[in-house]
């Protein structure tokens, strides 16, 4: 049986660099019957199948690129396993913004996050302001993946996502879907001592903000056990 993995991917970059188009191209090109997004295109999922039949499902979290929403980004990249930072090759300022995002990710995001720098609008190379060499050199210095893409023509789009899929840690056992709702195994099967993201976790989807919050609550509960146990004893006596 083939292995299945699920990863959270956050999409960053200035507005108008074509973040959303890039992802729509990726999502739309491969599966026409794609139906997972029931609300809107700010959250999308797409599955990549690697040569060894391993499937990697990306949960793609789009972010608002306008400067004024910059402070909201941590809500989105928290616990992301990978990030695609997009710039527009026809706007050198957008690469500057991308550098800022990358700095922020390196400082604030999970240390194991896989970051890909993506120069979009490669179909407009006549108006190019950012040379391939410049971007590539920067990416190498920072240890990032790098590619140029065109959301319009589709050039390089699936390649970059496939490359990310390959770079993600795929050593964990296949994720066991419980499929039974609030299954007894539940979310608690995640090792609490582990960093939730990127640590070969086969269920990185659990690493959502809310889930972590939930886990923290549970940990508090565990600490309170002795206290509760006392109460329980009392209660039992009352009942008897």
């Amino acid at each position: 049986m083939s292995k299945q993995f699920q990863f959270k991917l956050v999409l960053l970059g200035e507005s108008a660099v074509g973040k959303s188009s890039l992802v729509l191209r990726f999502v739309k090109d491969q599966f026409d019957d794609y139906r997972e997004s029931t609300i809107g295109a700010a959250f999308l999922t797409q599955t990549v199948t690697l040569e060894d039949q391993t499937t990697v499902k990306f949960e793609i979290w789009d972010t608002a690129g306008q400067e004024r929403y910059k402070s909201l980004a941590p809500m989105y990249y928290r616990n992301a396993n990978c990030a695609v930072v997009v710039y527009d090759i026809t706007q050198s300022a957008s690469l500057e913004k991308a550098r800022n995002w990358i700095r922020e990710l390196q400082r604030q995001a999970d240390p194991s996050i896989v970051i890909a720098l993506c120069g979009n609008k490669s179909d407009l190379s006549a108006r190019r302001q950012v040379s391939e060499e410049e971007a590539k050199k920067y990416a190498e210095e920072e240890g990032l993946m790098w590619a140029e893409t065109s959301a319009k023509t589709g050039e390089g789009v699936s390649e970059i996502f496939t490359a990310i899929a390959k770079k993600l840690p795929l050593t964990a056992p296949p994720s066991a879907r419980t499929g039974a709702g609030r299954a007894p195994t539940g979310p608690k099967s995640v090792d609490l001592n582990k960093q939730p993201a990127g640590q070969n976790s086969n269920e990185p989807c659990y690493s959502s903000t809310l889930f972590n919050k939930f886990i923290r609550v549970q940990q508090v509960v565990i600490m309170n056990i002795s206290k509760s146990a006392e109460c329980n004893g009392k209660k039992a006596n009352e009942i008897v």
Partner: protein
Amino acid sequence: MHKNLTPATSPNPWSDGERHFTSTARERELVLVPTDVEDEESEPRADDEAEARHILHTPDPSTFDRYVTGGFATDPQASAPLVAPPPATEILQEFDPLADQEEEHAKKAWEESEGHPAPPVPRDRISSPPPPVPLKDLPSPSPIPIPSAQSSGGFQSSLVALARSFSIPSLTRSPKLKGRPLSMDVAKPVPSPDTISSFATQQAKQPESNERKPESPDRQEEEDFEGSDTGSEDSRPGDPPFDFQKFLDQMKMRSADPVSKYLKSFLSNFSKRTFTVSDQIKIINDFLNFISNHMRQCEPWKTASDAEFDNAMEGMEKLVMNQLYQYTFTPAVAKDLNPITGLPRRPISVDDLERDRILSERIALFGWVEEKHLDIPVEEGTAGFLMFAEQELLKIGHYKAPRDKLICILNCCKVIFGLIRHLQKEEGADAFVPILIFVVLKANPDHLLSNVEFINRFRNPDKLRSEAGYYLSSLMGAVQFIESMDHTSLSNITQEEFEQNVEAAIQELPTNPDGTPRVLSMGSSSSSSSSSSSLSSISTPTQRSSPHLGAESAQPLSLPLSQNVYSQAPMAQQLSEDARSSMKHWTWLKKTLVHRKDMQALRHPEQVHLQVALRPSQYRIGLIN
């Protein structure tokens, strides 16, 4: 006994020691051991013919019939041979809000609540409230002038398309759904049509078949109808829709008695004691894990598919949280006062109410914010969509179950994407986030943070991942943005203007008796007063008398998927095609509503819901044209 109480297969959620603890704790503290279950390990009485039928999970025409003819358990035909013999009345009353007299009250409350479930006017618009549109006006033949598609342009078509899409789950649903809303978690959107016109054709087929429904009580015909309905988007094999009533019916089956008794015992014990919030989370989660093991061991769930069982657990969560709402939802706890002391009966250990108050008062300072300040294009129709989105968000205060509250948030986001499509902007967070912020500002829902916390605490964590997690995070992002908003956060405004506007807003705030603006006051008294006043704006006295209000299911909107994004056809062509078909639909929708009213179909809450949901759009259209 121990064997039963300890999940045998699952690895322990927290730690081995703890599992040991929890199982013992359950036995002792929560008294989950039902004293009156003869022998839980005995074979479920699945040999009963009636129950065996249920195992098959084929839609039962007689149960469907029962809903169409408007009768519930009292209908003699409803308990016809195909249905399991009715269980003991006490169990019935315990678990089925619709099984006894109170059902009538709940429905009455629904019908009599004018602004319900969408509170009519956001607070900041009180100064110019729109004239109330009485419910009875709706079905009148032409309550509003309907302009031709040509003159109305894009707005009309998009809004009508939106309105039409409201009809998908409730009016055109398959009879298998027995008149209950779909689950957002299982209800898959419409199968992808190749073009917008094929989508329209697909939709156009629905009304005809549906109109037959009330007119064909003959069972044979119903079966034919079901058979012919296999192409419906609602009935994807292997993906049963969430049906709370079906779950309640299952709970009433004799084979489910042990589960019912455990539940009853749990609810009763939970209500007798006061727990901290973190203990509540743990206890409820433990119970749901525990009961899921037991459910898996007895019919009808023993043989249920994973998807069906998932629905059953959704139903169980909803049932439990409906019942425990008054102990778990912070504003409800705060409202439950001890008549002697005037203080809440149960201590409130979390700061939800304070956070609610601070946010709500902060939002009140920004009533002047306009679309341009957040770069939202104002076009014909923008206001209608925004109103829709606000109302969807405001419904969060009505529903009790975390699942339903979450659906309200997601529905709000869906409407926002409807607007983005209408504006022909690129779909994505760049367009979505500003509109969401604007909607939160304008709606200023009461107890927004309490509601979100409630969802975070008590919704199945598995269901808070992925898409739901994204949109909840976005909502919290919007809140965070509002909390730190200054003139640099907005477009088209100078610092001076910003400060003037805020200053003016402070002056306009209602003041405390001592003359200080309420925004500056501290303490729980103002928060409790604001909470009670806000709740009363939604609830009428009749509603209060019904404990089941809000216990019904929220209905996920199924907006047409992003046609514009996926179709290669030029946008303009899509819109014109859409306009043509949507006018037809709009007329049909109105006709159906009239028809339904005549058939007294309004007995079902979700249909009232539909009417109320449609009202603002009609109102808006009337206004704009």
